[in-house]
């Protein structure tokens, strides 16, 4: 795993507050290789967005982060705001958010945002260079160059998401995070944008972390799928393996909750019974035990260890049959 572009080890993120502390990410370890498209899946509140935001250092100041996050060899945990701005944000890692309309200032033109971002990282850029850069990016996402003169509310959701993608590529960063980037769009636009992303990913050999609550959408586009449940990474493996032979009961439940074309007519879509554990208390059991149909005694006694069911495919469950070392 030494060729990892981003290597996260034992990451813990605790949201502060004097009255209540909530653990949003609990002992997460994850490595992403150059050129890989990794899907991070989980329901809302599972901690996936927190994990993504922590990479760019955009969590509230009261948040406590421990553990390690190395990007290209640089440790990100503990970097100051100024250092993150200089070393990480946008030149190395960029992000595309879900709601593009809210993600842009309503009283500024698109190009005002872009110019400010460009200038923030490279004050020496000339106006002509900036114009060229913006025009090139607009062509890249297949929008007319003059689109940048618009205000956000004048554009459609699909156009705005293209703009956001173009913005994320302002400095050709090797690593792009897509945080539910297509969730708010209608199905057709969603498909177009995903195709666009795939094309750009191949063209620039981008490394992509694609966050979604929709495991089906991720399955089509990612090489690898990482599943989060209640602050923990419960499964991590090649996309095909995770879909066809999930190792964690939560992933199984998640997949069986998907509507299938080949399902018998009249069958009901299964939902997962039970509720989330209280994340403001320390855990000494499996997080999924309260909802797990296969839970046994040991599940209630300790947090299970991460076990590999096959090379490169792990699950955080005592029931995972460890692959024999060969």
């Amino acid at each position, binding site marked *: 795993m030494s060729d990892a572009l981003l290597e996260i080890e034992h990451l813990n993120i605790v949201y502060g507050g004097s009255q209540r502390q909530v653990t949003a990410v609990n002992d997460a370890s994850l490595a992403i290789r150059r050129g890989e498209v990794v899907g991070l899946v989980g329901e809302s509140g599972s901690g996936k967005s927190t994990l993504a*935001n922590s990479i*760019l250092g*955009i969590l509230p100041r009261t948040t406590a982060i421990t553990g390690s996050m190395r990007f290209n060899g640089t440790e990100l945990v503990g970097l100051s*705001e*100024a250092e*993150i*701005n*200089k070393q990480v*944000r*946008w*030149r190395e890692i*960029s*992000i595309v*958010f879900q*709601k593009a309309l*809210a*993600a*842009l*200032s*309503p*009283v*500024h033109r698109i190009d005002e*945002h872009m110019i*400010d*971002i460009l200038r*923030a*990282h490279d004050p020496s850029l000339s106006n002509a260079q900036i114009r060229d850069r913006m025009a090139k990016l607009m062509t890249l996402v297949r929008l007319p160059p003059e689109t940048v003169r618009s*205000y956000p*509310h*004048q554009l459609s959701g699909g156009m705005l998401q293209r703009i956001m993608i173009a*913005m994320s590529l*302002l400095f050709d960063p090797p690593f792009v995070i897509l945080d539910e980037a297509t969730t708010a769009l209608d199905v057709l636009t969603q498909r177009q944008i995903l195709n666009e992303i795939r094309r750009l990913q191949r063209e620039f050999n981008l490394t992509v972390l694609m966050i979604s609550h929709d495991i089906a959408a991720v399955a089509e586009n990612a090489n690898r799928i990482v599943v989060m449940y209640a602050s923990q990474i419960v499964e991590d493996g090649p996309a095909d393996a995770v879909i066809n032979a999930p190792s964690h009961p939560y992933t199984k439940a998640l997949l069986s909750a998907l509507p299938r074309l080949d399902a018998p007519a009249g069958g009901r879509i299964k939902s997962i019974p039970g509720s989330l554990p209280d994340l403001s208390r320390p855990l000494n059991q499996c997080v999924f035990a309260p909802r797990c149909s296969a839970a046994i005694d040991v599940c209630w006694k300790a947090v299970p260890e991460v076990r590999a069911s096959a090379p490169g495919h792990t699950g955080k469950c005592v029931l995972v049959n460890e692959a024999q070392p060969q």
Partner: protein
Amino acid sequence: MLRYLLRQIGTMIPTFFLVMLISFFLIHLAPGDPVSRYSGNFVLTADARQALLEKYGLDQPVPVQFVRYLATLAQGDLGKSMLSGREVTDMIGERLPATLMLTISSSILAFLGGNLLAVITARRRKLDLGASLVSYVLYSMPTFWLGIILIIVFATKLNWFPTSGYVNSREQYTGLRYALDVLDHLALPCLTLVLVELPGYYRVARASIGDVRQEDFITTLRASGLSQGKIFRRYALKNALLPSVTLFGLSLGYALSGAALVEIVFAWPGVGRLTLDSVLKRDYPVLMGIYLVIAVSVMVAILLTDIVYAFIDPRIRYQ
């Protein structure tokens, strides 16, 4: 943009007539007519009384009086005072500059001060707490009482400013000396209004800055590597300004009536003083005239606010 404005004006016209109608009836249906007020303790003969009523059209039914009033109004004529016989337009006109000078200067200062304070305290918790406390106290003060306190402190005790009036009547200043003298008299009433209005701007701006900082686009800009200072100055502030601008515009609408109590405390020769005198003497034409000017100024202020708003907020401009 133009269509938007025309539509706004269109909706205001019926409102304007309703305003006139309600106020006209309210004032005229009240017991006590100006003729008996005017005569005071003198007992008028029935004939003399009748003559006076006829002279001012008061013998007609109220609806007829209203139609007549509208007719004269359409000619730009606000009628004549029942007491002095002077043109109402002149009476209000000569009072307007003093009132406008007082209210506009104080509104601008309060707007600037309140917003500045909000920006300064936005990121300093302790200062913020102190400013909030002070703003609550100032916000709760009756303007006239604050005026009296300022007179006690700055005029009678410290002798820095004159207690009341518009100019020093004992001197015959001209030119620059005259202007300075007026400013000297303006200081305390203006300060009173600023102190009372500033907390409103402060609170609105502070809440608005707080709201804007929670917006998603702030996170986007932060993620993209813009410095916090630049985000605040370039993006947060412009977005946060919108509610303050509205408040400022609306407060200008009340510029004519809002300072009445302060004008009375400081014997400032403005519209407020005129209003009170006309109320006490039931001088209908003057009251109606003042009311008309107030209603129009409120509507103009709303319209101007809309225009300024459209300049700042493209979402409205491109509707």
